[in-house]
Every structure is written in structure tokens, then in C-alpha cells.
């Protein structure tokens, strides 16, 4: 939790990682990709305040104690939602698997939600794996990385036929939150890999599921916003928006926030620190203090204390059925768990 000026904020970090990108985990023959991936992430960290930068060595592999200090003890985070990114073609044991995340979760069971993943190119064995993972980790959400490489394929679309049984399986298992992360490759390579039209299609088709578009569809914020206005069950994941812009480019950050508030709205925006790229502490504190820099932004909706409380935790708490203590709730709000339960029953 975070308290400022007498207001208490319940913080759900909807995008957190516990990864291992150390050279010992690089797949032989794929070292350049494994190295390039983590160095790219490390460069992103450079967009945060200088005093929060790490050495590349620490960034490649950090400890459970680092995580607990940076996220729970100093980062104000009440609940962290772990988002896996497997990348087993590049990292022997995976870059960041549900299994790795579950180690952290076991140490902090009340503060952790472990999301799963699937890859529709894995066919029937993948469906069985999803069932097993769900039984083991109790997934309420999955994170999908559409640009992941898999046996010669460089990506997929959510609207592909092979993906549909997986969404049906998610509905059957009660995995209701689908986090989507677009990346730079997809089949066929000549199309725009960041296009969010496939999210639009499946969001329309599966009304029981929530689709959280990570990084607000960056670099296609415009496509994402147009789509989000039309789909009730599409949400904006703010990871990278806050971490990558709030400090490095505050005026762009203000414009992007203004557009998101206008098109998507404060009820459908979710804070995510994207640790260990960026530590949550400066992001939480910065967002609570944030306002538009001057009156050239007067066309945009304002963001007040209530909106910040929703973005920092209450919106994600609703999606995940997290019981928020009364002191953090908004006055007119139902307890989240009850509301979520009703949603499942109806």
C-alpha cells in the first residue's frame, strides 16, 4: 500500500517478472538472441531515473530477496501478478516461466498471483499442459506473447484457428484474464506484427474473457485505442507507458495518458511496473503525484485521486477477484471478490 496526503492506495502490480537471463541459461547456438533480448530490456531500464539503474550482470539474474525488497518492501505493491515469458528457444530453462514465478509465490503466497501461458502451435499436448498448469498453479490469467518463436515459426495471431480451442479451454477452466503482448515478429513476416485486429476479433467472440493489451498496444496505441472503445472487455496494461515515458519523456507521457483517459477511460487502465525492467517504487509515487504539466493539455479528461486508485490497483483487483480491505476501497464500491464471484455465476 501507499499513503500520500491522507489517501491510501491499494497497489496491484499487474505486470511483474522473476526471470533468469544469465549466460548459463542461454541455449547453445542461440546465444546472440538470448543476449540481445536481455540487453534490449536493459536498455529500456535506462529510461527510468538514473538511481534505479542496475548493472547488466544483476539485471540478467536477480535474487528472490531483490524482488521482495524492490516490489513488496519498498515498492508499495500489495499484490504482484507474475506474467511469464517462456522463450525456450533462447533460454534453456525458459526466460521467465510459471515454475520460476511459483518459487517467488511460495515465499509470498498472499501477495502473489502466478499467470500461465499457452502457445496454440503446441496443439493437443499444449492444451493438456494448460490443464496441468492450471491445476498446479491455480491460474486466473494467462500471458500470451504472439511473437514467440516455436520450431521454425516466428509467431501467430490470436484469431488463428489453432488458437480457438485454447480460449475455449480457458473459459472452461475459469482462466478469465488474457494478457496479450505483441512483439516484432509474426507469421507472415511481411504483415505488421503489432496489429491488434486479432485481439478485436477474439474479444468480440469471447465475451466471458477479459483481454488486457499489454503496453497499451505500443507501438500501435492508435489502433489499440480505436479498438478498445468498441470492446467492453478490452483493457489497457500500462507497463512501459509509465516506466518508459513518465521519467524519460514527461510531455509525451502526459499526451499518451490524456489519450488513454479519453479513449479507454480510467476504469479500464491497469498499472504494471514491468519489474525488473523498472522498479515499482518511483512509478507508484510518480503516478500518485502526477498531473498534466500545463493548460495546453486542457482537452483531456482529468485524473483525480479516485482514478489513480482504480489504475494503481482497484481495476486489477476486480479482474482477479482480489479482496481489497475496506480502507482502500472507493465509497460506492462493492467488495471485489463478491462482484467477481457474481460474474462467474451469472
Amino acid at each position, binding site marked *: 500500500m501507499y499513503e500520500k496526503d491522507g489517501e491510501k492506495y491499494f497497489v496491484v502490480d499487474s505486470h511483474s517478472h522473476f526471470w533468469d537471463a544469465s549466460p548459463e541459461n542461454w541455449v547453445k547456438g542461440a546465444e546472440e538472441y538470448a543476449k540481445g533480448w536481455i540487453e534490449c530490456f536493459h536498455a529500456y531500464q535506462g529510461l527510468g531515473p538514473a538511481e534505479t539503474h542496475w548493472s547488466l550482470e544483476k539485471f540478467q539474474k536477480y535474487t528472490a530477496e531483490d524482488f521482495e525488497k524492490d516490489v513488496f518492501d519498498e515498492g508499495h505493491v500489495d499484490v504482484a501478478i507474475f506474467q511469464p515469458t517462456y522463450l525456450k528457444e533462447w533460454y534453456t530453462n525458459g526466460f521467465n516461466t510459471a515454475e520460476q514465478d511459483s518459487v517467488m509465490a511460495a515465499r509470498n503466497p498472499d501477495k502473489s498471483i502466478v499467470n500461465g501461458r499457452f502457445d496454440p502451435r503446441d496443439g493437443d499436448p499444449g492444451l493438456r499442459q494448460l490443464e496441468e498448469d492450471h491445476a498446479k498453479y491455480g491460474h486466473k490469467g494467462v500471458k500470451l506473447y504472439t511473437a514467440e518463436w516455436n520450431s521454425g515459426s*516466428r509467431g501467430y495471431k490470436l484469431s488463428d484457428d489453432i488458437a480457438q480451442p485454447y480460449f475455449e479451454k480457458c473459459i472452461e477452466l475459469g482462466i478469465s484474464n488474457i494478457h496479450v503482448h505483441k512483439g516484432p515478429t509474426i507469421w*507472415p513476416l511481411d504483415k505488421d506484427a503489432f496489429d491488434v485486429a486479432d485481439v478485436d476479433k477474439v474479444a468480440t467472440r469471447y465475451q466471458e474473457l477479459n483481454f488486457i493489451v499489454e503496453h497499451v498496444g505500443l507501438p500501435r496505441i492508435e489502433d489499440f485505442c480505436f479498438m478498445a472503445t468498441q470492446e467492453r472487455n478490452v483493457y489497457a496494461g500500462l507497463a512501459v507507458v509509465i516506466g518508459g*515515458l513518465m521519467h524519460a519523456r514527461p510531455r509525451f507521457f502526459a499526451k499518451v495518458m490524456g489519450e488513454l483517459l479519453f479513449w479507454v477511460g480510467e476504469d479500464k487502465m491497469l498499472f504494471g511496473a514491468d519489474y525488473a525492467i523498472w522498479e515499482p517504487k518511483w512509478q507508484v509515487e510518480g503516478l500518485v503525484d502526477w498531473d498534466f504539466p500545463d493548460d495546453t493539455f486542457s482537452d483531456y479528461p482529468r485524473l483525480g485521486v479516485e482514478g489513480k486508485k482504480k489504475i494503481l490497483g482497484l481495476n486489477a483487483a476486480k479482474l482477479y477477484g482480489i479482496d481489497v480491505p475496506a480502507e482502500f476501497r472507493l465509497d460506492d464500491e462493492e467488495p471485489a471478490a463478491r462482484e467477481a464471484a457474481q460474474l462467474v455465476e451469472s
Partner: protein
Amino acid sequence: MTKDDVLAALGTVYDPELDEPITALKFVASCEVADDGAVSVRLRLPTPQCAPNFAFLMAADARDAVRTVPGVGAVSVVLEDHYTGNEINAAVAGDGGFGDAFPGETEGELDALRELFRRKALVARQGRLLETVADPVSARLGDLTGPDAVRCRELRSELGIDASDEAPAFVRGDGTPVPAPEIARFARMASLTAISLEANGGVCRSLLSVRYGIEEVAA
């Protein structure tokens, strides 16, 4: 022929996603002109994971632009430090297309992708020009001035949209004029598209400066 001539030619090459010249973005890492007129250009991008399709377009466009410089000899354009650099560089060196760089992984060449982003760029540029005219519906292209107006004309010509002075100043991405009742919504969408491109350009500049330890250039 001098290095400046080559750099001027490279200045006509745009990052299709950001709608900015690769020289302004500092994507040209080096440019050398030998005594025999041979030109060697090295390109660099903000991350090793930048999308292969856009990376290919910039490398191939750079090669083609440099070849138009009078007196130029052999032209070599090499993309540095990219995870599909080997594939892209081989195809660019051999005058191959995108499909040659990634056999079996493409359905077509990159014309449709390029066109899509030209349309986005046109909408974004118009977003910045809208507030410079009193009545956007009656405004003509000839009424618009400044760098955004110049670029709009280029983009319209490339897209086969009327780029004469008398043509309507503001058109949708498909080239049809924006009717009066739609101006407010068009302005909102154009502003969003412009901000998206600017934000991406900002992130790319920041990442490039972190990656190569160079001083950041203003957008």
C-alpha cells in the same frame, strides 16, 4: 560526389513506422566514400529486436537512394547488430526482396505494409495541420505551409491521392475528403495517431541513445 551528397540521399529515406528520415533519427552509423566512388553505409537501430520488415525496408531503401547519386560506384548497405541482420544483409546485398531474406516466412513483399504506414503518416501529419486553418472543410492543399504540408504532398503523391494546390486539404487515409460532420472526430483520431507516432519516435530515440551512448537528439 561527396559524402554530403550521399547523406543528402539518405535523408530522403524514411523510417516507415515513424515517418521521419533515418538521418534525423541517427540510424546512419557511418557513411564512407572511397576514391573509386564505392559507398559503404552502416545502419543501426534502437534495439536488436526491431521488426525485421521495417528494418528491411530501411536498408533496401537506403541502398536504392544511394544508387541514385550521380557518380556513385558500388554500394554496400549493412544493418548492424540486428537479430535478423544476416538474413537482411544478404538479401540487400544481392538485390533480393524481403521474401528472399526470409524464404517461406512471408506471403508477399512489403508494399502493402508500406502503404498502410504511409496512410497512417498522412493522417498524423494532417492532425498537426488542422489547427493551422480556420475552416478545414473548405481549405485547399495549397493553403497549407511548412514541413508537415510538404510531407503531406509527398505522401499523397506516393499514395496516388491528388496532391495539387486545389485539392481538398484534409483527406481520410483512403484519400476521400473529410466531410464537415466528421471533422471533430477526424481531428481526435488524427491527433491520437500523431501522438502515437511521436511517442514511438521518442522511445526509439531514447533507446538508441542508451544503446550506443550517443547524445539524444530532439524530436
